[in-house]
């Protein structure tokens, strides 16, 4: 098991290097005016010249790349024109909110998607199954930002059941940042009412973000369950008199889930991408909102920084899922 983990970690290195190359390429080599973009629309000629020298645009490309990576390793992601702070500091500040939202959405998508997929497979070809198929395609087709808007309209503005936007109401103080997750921090410090309101704030954005992957996970789980149900070992389990609940969990579900797990990794990436849209709708102070505001002000460095961080998150998430897959499906450990 340990060798499996180590091997997977080792395969990360070229990926991380490649990520930086791509980001460098986008930032520096694309047609467009990197100096102009970094300096902003209101820079003077002198400021531009200074920046050009600082960027080292007259140096060979690979040297530019070297300085870029050196800067990254030291934590220098450039400076944001909008916030006037180092991008790295901004990224650190906004990351926990995005993580909290994405993890909540992932929990919803997996926690509801897998059981629903199992159920629809068991009730296959009867009307609940057919209905859920149509609903699933509908869920996948619904734009996340429109869904967010509808949720806000319905539950926040008309029914007044849920808060409209943000992580916490303005009047509530966030708990001491232990993990950066307001929900976990509130629970750890015993502030139950803060936890409650934080969860209420988290609900709609997480729902808007998770609906599409939930539907896809449900469909995947359904088809792999159907495939597993036709396998010989299920027949043997029945023939040997295993109780129905055990056949369902240990025999069918366990084998069907391992097939679905591989897709979950892909959807994590989709969720990370989608935070941009959902955070904008719900004023959720995360990386996505940060990047959106930066784009609108033509502030380039934050966008690159966000892309890099999200890329890193995605790679690590896939690593974790790979490891989890190795845990559940023992055959994979030896590949």
């Amino acid at each position, binding site marked *: 098991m340990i060798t499996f983990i180590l091997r997977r970690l080792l395969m990360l290195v070229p990926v991380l290097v490649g990520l930086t190359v791509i980001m460098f390429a986008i930032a520096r080599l694309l047609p467009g005016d990197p100096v102009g973009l970094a300096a902003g629309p209101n820079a003077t000629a002198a400021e531009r010249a200074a920046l050009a020298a600082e960027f080292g645009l007259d140096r060979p490309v690979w040297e530019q790349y070297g300085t870029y990576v050196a800067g990254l390793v030291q934590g220098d992601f450039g400076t944001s024109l909008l916030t006037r702070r180092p991008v790295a500091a901004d990224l650190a500040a906004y990351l926990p909110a995005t993580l909290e939202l994405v993890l909540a959405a992932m929990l919803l998508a997996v926690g509801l998607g897998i059981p629903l997929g199992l159920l629809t497979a068991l009730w296959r070809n009867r009307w609940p199954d057919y209905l859920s198929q149509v609903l699933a395609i509908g869920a996948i087709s619904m734009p996340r930002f429109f869904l967010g808007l509808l949720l806000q309209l319905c539950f926040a503005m008309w029914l007044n059941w849920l808060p409209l936007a943000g992580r916490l109401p303005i009047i509530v103080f966030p708990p001491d940042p232990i993990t950066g997750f307001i929900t976990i921090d509130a629970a750890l410090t015993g502030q139950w009412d803060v936890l409650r309101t934080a969860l209420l704030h988290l609900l709609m954005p997480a729902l808007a973000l998770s609906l599409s992957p939930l539907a896809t996970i449900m469909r995947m789980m359904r088809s792999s369950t159907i495939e597993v149900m036709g*396998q*010989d*070992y299920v*027949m*043997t*389990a*029945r*023939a*040997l*008199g*295993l*109780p*129905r609940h*055990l056949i369902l969990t*240990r*025999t069918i579900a*366990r*084998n069907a889930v*391992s097939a679905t797990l591989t897709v979950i990794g892909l959807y994590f990436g989709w969720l990370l991408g989608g935070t941009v849209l959902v955070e904008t709708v719900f004023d959720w102070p995360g990386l996505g909102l940060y990047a959106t505001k930066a784009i609108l002000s033509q502030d380039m460095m934050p966008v690159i920084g966000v892309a890099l961080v999200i890329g890193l998150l995605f790679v690590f998430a896939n690593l974790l899922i790979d490891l989890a897959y190795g845990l*559940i*499906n*023992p*055959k994979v450990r030896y590949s």
Partner: protein
Amino acid sequence: MTVPLLDIRNLHLAMRSFEGEAHVLNGVELCVNRGEIWGLVGESGCGKSLTGLSISRLLPEPPARYISAEITLEGRDLRALSPREMQALRGKRIGMIFQDPTTNLNPTARIGTQLVDVALAAARHDPTILPPARSRRAGARALALDMMRQVGIPDPEARMMSYPHEFSGGMRQRVLIAMALIGRPDLLIADEPTTALDVSVQAQILTLLKAMVAEHDLGVILITHNLGVVAQTCSHVAVMYAGNVVERGPVRQVIERPAHPYTRALMAAIPTRDTPRGGLQGLEGTVPDLIQPPPGCRFAPRCTRATEACRAAVPPLTPQGPGHEVACLHPVTEDAPHV
């Protein structure tokens, strides 16, 4: 006369398919007692697996449809049981082994877990199978270890934590046998248990089966198409053709004095050292279409001894010798040319 362990009479089964409904079992009759190993032989498609599955009621209905069936287990009518009552018998009174050990074990559960699950399920109905221990789970675990030893798996303590893919084919089949027997069933149905294994491993498994029968006083139905296996291992044999049991009886009787023309043809087809080159004896014709089967004896179209009476109605099983019955109106009485 003791009540037979398993008594099948009048088993008629139809299966729906694209082309129509096939009358796959045409009045199967079988009677198994404790301590007997019945070989159920026949070519592919003759219905032997379906017969085995019907005993445990593992066929989904549709597409299966039982036209008639009288199956009793020590006098208890299996067809009258509710699904829950049937489930209580599976694994506990009736054990089953299927053909391919590779696909019949749950790939994501450890061997020990799979054995313990079956043991616990059986113990719920009969706690006496568990040896005394501090908890049911501990008792089930001890039983699993014991079974693994009995079927000849070396180092069972360590192997319990293994996954199926870490075992060889022969070992996996031993595990399946252990799983089938752990609930102390009275009847074991083994569907081609050695077909997917090497010849040397085959011999080991068959010896194991015979030892299990002696140890636990089981009745066994061994479904196979291999007459060699039958001759080596079984005490009795039932020959099936196109959904009928055409001959049955003690194995030496049937093999030395085959009475049904089909059985004789089967025996004649087995090559021996003396068979000359090019001298393989086949059988003319093909298996009948089960969707539109012939009305009488289903072997009649291929039989050299058939008469009008044969084509009129299915011949019943009539005694031919001690314990030896044949479903034929014109059985052969000479000894087989070779054995």
